């Protein structure tokens, strides 16, 4: 079998390649500058696309590589990846499975798992899908010996113009690899209250993360720290949820955590159904007590 993996982030190709490489030849496509991240994972060849990536020109570039040559095309899920997956779906007329977090090849078919009903259920399907979008971080990358050759390819000029670009302040944090996460929700009340949470983050040698409203609506934290169905899927050893009510959208992002601790004023908050230890109370009283207990 021949597989193609696309991601504008080279590191997202590695896990999928690791999962696929024993079943056939795996090719990768990424953006120039990203290719070096995925050359030690047993790929047969990596294409690096030169130019400004937009949905339309990436789709054209993939067509030039000739998508009909491949048995299956895997796309790492992202805003760009989903746009491209839709375009491919329209051109090759195949079933597309989206947002898979696990899959197994079953002869001619593929068995996939993804969240449904907003994260309340897991939908397991079997199909002949040729295009699958995969949630980043679903498979652990493992290096192999040897180095993958790179082929450069030009991106055409997109019909979408980039008029302005505003780089964001990035802390360079990687909440997906943190062993302990302290995660905040609306319940902390205001951005300044983060100062009162930081002693706990330091005491557990963890990282700070947050819910969708905290990261996107109120912007108390940057988006790279957002946990949830639409954010990062995290699997820390300990996940400490402070003032997070536990909407299913959020639960779907932290379900893989080993131990979940929740602090919330509301005894009926749904997060208490999804935690190992829950404390009903004011988080601003609980946090300092917890910090001093941990220091003893």
């Amino acid at each position, binding site marked *: 079998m021949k597989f193609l993996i696309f991601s504008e982030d080279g590191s997202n190709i590695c896990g999928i390649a690791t999962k696929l490489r024993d079943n056939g030849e795996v090719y990768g496509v990424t953006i120039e500058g990203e290719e070096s991240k995925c050359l030690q994972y047993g790929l047969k060849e990596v294409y690096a696309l030169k130019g400004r990536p937009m949905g339309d020109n990436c789709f054209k570039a993939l067509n030039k590589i000739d998508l009909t040559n491949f048995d299956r095309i895997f796309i790492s899920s992202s805003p760009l990846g989903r746009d491209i997956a839709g375009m491919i779906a329209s051109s090759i007329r195949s079933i597309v499975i989206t*947002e898979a977090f696990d899959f197994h090849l079953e002869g001619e078919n593929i068995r996939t798992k993804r969240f449904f009903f907003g994260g309340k259920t897991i939908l397991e399907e079997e199909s002949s899908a040729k295009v699958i979008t995969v949630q980043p971080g679903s498979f652990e990358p493992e290096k192999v010996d040897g180095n993958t050759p790179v082929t450069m390819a030009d991106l055409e000029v997109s019909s979408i113009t980039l008029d*302005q670009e505003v780089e964001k302040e990035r802390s360079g944090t990687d909440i997906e690899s943190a062993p302990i996460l302290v995660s905040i929700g609306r319940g902390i009340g205001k951005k300044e209250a983060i100062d009162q949470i930081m002693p706990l983050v330091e005491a557990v040698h963890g990282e700070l993360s947050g819910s969708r409203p905290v990261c996107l609506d109120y912007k108390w934290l940057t*988006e790279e720290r957002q946990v949830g169905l639409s954010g990062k899927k995290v699997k820390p050893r300990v996940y400490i949820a402070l003032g997070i009510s536990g909407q299913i959208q959020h639960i779907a992002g932290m379900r893989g955590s080993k131990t979940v601790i929740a602090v919330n004023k509301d005894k009926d908050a749904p997060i208490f*159904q999804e935690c190992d230890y829950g404390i*009903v109370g004011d988080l601003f009283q609980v946090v300092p007590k917890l910090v001093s207990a941990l220091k003893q």
Partner: protein
Amino acid sequence: MAINIVVLIKQIVDIDQLKTDPNSGEPLIQNIPLRIENLSKNSIEAAVQLKEKNGGKVTGIIFGTEKANSAMKEAYAMGVDEGFIITGYKGNNPAYTASIISNKIKELGNVDCVILGNQSADSYTGLLPGLLSTELNMNLLGNAVSISEEGGRFKIKRVLDEKDEIISAEKPCVISVTQEINQPRLPPVLQIMAAGRKPINASAAGAGNFETPKIVSNIAPKSDRKRQLFEDMDKGVAEVAKAIRGEMK
């Protein structure tokens, strides 16, 4: 420039009210009311704002079931001018949905932009924007948090992980929006009453020959959490500190 806008509206089961069977994990879907998907409300609001600013018309399309009338009336009350319900929706199959909706849009003709949510809350596929842009041969402006129009070009702001971008393209465009784009309006009672009297166009979808995946299972994931709840704060803190220390070793 007056803009001819199509907005795509999805009606879903109210997933916030959806429970799963504690034993089998099966979703208990009977008797759950339907509602307009939140992102569709954001899309309607964005479309109506665009019309209010530039002039033009907003046409709503629902690919759904006979039960979609209430959703279309709500869309009318928010400012949608004309509505089409296509019945025959059988479930999540983006390729089929895209072919039905793009046929309708081609039939309407002269559409400047199609506005829809970037990823619906229930099935979460996010494929429709890309599918429609290819089938309708329109430029795709994805994940907008703001939309404007100037001289036949649409401009959006989108928020990516590492940066914010302002991008633009010639009309016609497919524009997908995220929930941060706006706060959908609550229509006044007079508009709701007027919406109730407004006619809705209905038609049935043609049969499509589209393969669908076989569903192996669709159940709630098992939660093996301990669920030890402490209302005594000090007791809780002691227990939690012990658990954290165990994991820090």
